[in-house]
């Protein structure tokens, strides 16, 4: 869907083949209700394909395929969406990007190499947190709660935003550190798991800090841009799959002696869906280009994508369900796997309304992208 160069096409084909084999929809269904959906072996194999190294600097074993690692990662994200696949794709890549950009080579290249190699996963506590950091002699102590963290249970490292006198600051916390407590949460997606994380007197060395004190507010916005591109890729991939299923259905389902797809109402709905799919792909690609190359208007592009696709991709899949009729709302049909995925992706980072406000503020501030 997003592969342009020959190398990207090979990468896409390899990722697709691997996910086809590993996560056919029966396997995805099989993970429903499982407390843990993480498979370390699968993740390491995925890392071999390149899923975790694209935003990592070369000094720590990373590298991109096309020169724009985020555009490469978009290819993986679309395949994840098209398979409703589990895996710490968001958190691991976000934390890897953070360590590569703002961490110090001396203190953070160790974890970074583990992430890039697929030997460890990571989670980014992106949601609202009320964690505070108290400085000691060469140490810092974290207390408080991060309400919603994806993949904390399978992560070896948590990137946490804590407030301290200098402002919001990032810390890399080993998940196994004393005082880190997890409480599992439930949600719409069958395979992605979330936890609430409590920090109770978690003592860390100073060097656990990632980036300058007080820089986490800005850095979280940068990470939000990166992760939103992954979400856009997933939504485009999931919508692509649901659309293909629906187009098949309208050709093969007969009603009153004719194919469903011969009714103009149905054709027009399919035309709308096809157009939304193309628009989702187009803006995801554009956002990956802009964010991945550090373009001045990157935040406008990714916000526009999340505002639009976050609103319309879930609606489009709901319409796919409507076009299927009764079977579309059954658990046995696969459509809901993709509805679940886009619903999660659309809301997880704040929802389309929040991204529209973010874009509106950029426009009002005179900082809109140039169309």
């Amino acid at each position, binding site marked *: 869907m997003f592969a342009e160069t020959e190398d990207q096409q090979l990468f896409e084909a390899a990722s697709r083949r691997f996910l086809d084999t590993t996560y056919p929809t029966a396997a995805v269904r099989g993970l429903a209700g499982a407390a843990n959906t993480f498979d370390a072996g699968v993740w390491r194999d995925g890392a071999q394909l390149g899923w975790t190294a694209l935003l990592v600097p070369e000094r720590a074993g990373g590298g991109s395929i096309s020169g724009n690692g985020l555009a490469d990662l978009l290819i993986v994200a679309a395949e994840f969406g098209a398979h409703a696949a589990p895996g710490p794709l968001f958190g691991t890549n976000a934390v890897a990007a953070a360590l590569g950009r703002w961490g110090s080579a001396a203190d953070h290249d160790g974890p970074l190499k583990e992430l890039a190699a697929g030997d460890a996963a990571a989670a980014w506590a992106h949601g609202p947190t009320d964690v505070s950091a108290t400085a000691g002699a060469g140490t810092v102590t974290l207390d408080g709660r991060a309400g919603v963290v994806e993949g904390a249970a399978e992560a070896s490292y948590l990137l946490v935003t804590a407030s301290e006198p200098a402002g919001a600051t990032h810390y890399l916390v080993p998940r196994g550190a004393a005082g880190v407590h997890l409480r599992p949460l439930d949600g719409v997606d069958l395979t992605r798991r979330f936890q609430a994380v409590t920090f109770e007197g978690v003592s860390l060395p100073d060097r656990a800090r990632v980036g300058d004190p007080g820089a986490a507010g800005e850095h979280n916005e940068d990470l939000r841009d990166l992760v939103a591109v992954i979400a856009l890729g997933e939504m485009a991939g999931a919508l692509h799959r649901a659309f293909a299923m629906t187009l098949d259905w309208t050709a093969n389902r007969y009603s009153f002696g004719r194919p469903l797809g011969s009714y103009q109402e149905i054709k027009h709905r399919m035309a709308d869906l096809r157009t939304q799919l193309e628009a989702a792909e187009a803006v995801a690609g554009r956002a990956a280009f802009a964010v991945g190359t550090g373009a001045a208007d990157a935040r406008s592009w990714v916000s526009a994508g999340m505002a639009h696709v976050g609103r319309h991709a879930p609606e489009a899949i709901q319409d796919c369900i409507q076009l299927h009729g009764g079977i579309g709302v059954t658990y046995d049909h696969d459509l809901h796997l993709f509805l679940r995925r886009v619903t999660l992706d659309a809301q997880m980072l704040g929802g389309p309304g929040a991204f529209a406000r973010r874009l509106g503020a950029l426009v*009002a501030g005179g900082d809109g992208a140039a*169309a």
Partner: protein
Amino acid sequence: MTVPVEEFAARARDWLPGHIPPTDPEAGHFFFSGPSTRNDEHDLRRIDRCRDLQRRLFDGGFAGICVPTEYGGQGLTPAHQSAFNRELRGYDYPIEIQASTFIPCMAILLEFGTEEQKLRHIPAMLRGEEIWAQFLSEPGGGSDAAGAVTTAVPDGEQWVVNGSKIWTTGAWYSDWAMCLARTNWDVEKHRGLTVFSLPVHSAGIEIHRIELVNGAKEFCQEFLTDVVIDDRDRVGDVDGGWTVMTRWLHHERTISGGSPYVTSAGGRSDEAPNDGPALAALARGLGTLEAPGTLELIGEARSLTLVGDALVRSVTKKMQTQELPHHAAAMPRLFGGTANVRKAAIALELAGPSGVVWAPDEPRHAAVGGAYLVRQAGCIGGGTTEMARNVISERLLGMPREARSDEGPFREVPRGPR
């Protein structure tokens, strides 16, 4: 040797400041905008300026970038045109004559015109001397172009044309027109059509201006009575008009983007009355920028513009690499139409009471109300969004075609209740 794109762009960058004035927001927004911001004098001044701007582009070596040099163009590639369009940002350019003069009319002449026609018209178009209009739709049917009943009858080396055309943008200030006419009533409807070119101000052509709900008057209806056209002005084969039309309609659809013949900074959407920056200015003027929901609406409008732009670029590229067929141009058309409808609604919602009752010295508020009233025009003109949906579903998705009731000799096809 083709000049490298970067070098061409650098040349444009050097040339533009001394030769092309900056955008004039007061002068733009010609189409569909109501009389609160303009009148005929204003429009004619603007058209003169378009001719002048076009002439400057021509003299500077930037007109018809993808047009062969023998017809006055630059003989370069779509990449050169794109690069020039990027450089053009912030400058004024003749936006009002891109459609219909360059697409579809010039594009059609390039594909179907005789050598004589191309040499006669294309350099004149590129110099801003000939502005063209499309005599296409008819009062009896808008979307069903092949159902044309305006008839051309041969008379020696000439044709005599009778009938009526409608929804012609700017016929009243245009010089030439491309006209679809029926030349054979006894064959299936698509097989009895022929395309002609003719001077708009020929004897026997009466032009009426149509007033839209917001007072805009650029659309016209023409009545053609015994209009004589020389056979040398026929474009394409006799009864071969539909072959020309399929390309005509294709080029028309590329107005939202993707044509190699359109000179456009694109970024004019920044200044479009219903896009983000203008909406932010509107809300600021009303003192509602901080009100709940305002930024969200502005952001939604801006997102529609940006997503639409990404869509145009991506579909254009995919059509160029043949990843998608040319019918895919119907997707940006559909998206653009529905997006503009939504943006007009957002503008009215932001304006609130000021968009429905305004003081005489508040043209911006009047424009919001007027644009809302006329907003469906964006889903109708240039082919309705319903037609775009047919094209997408049937041609792109391969879904079953609509049943037809217009096969057989056109003379026998029902054209109204019997």
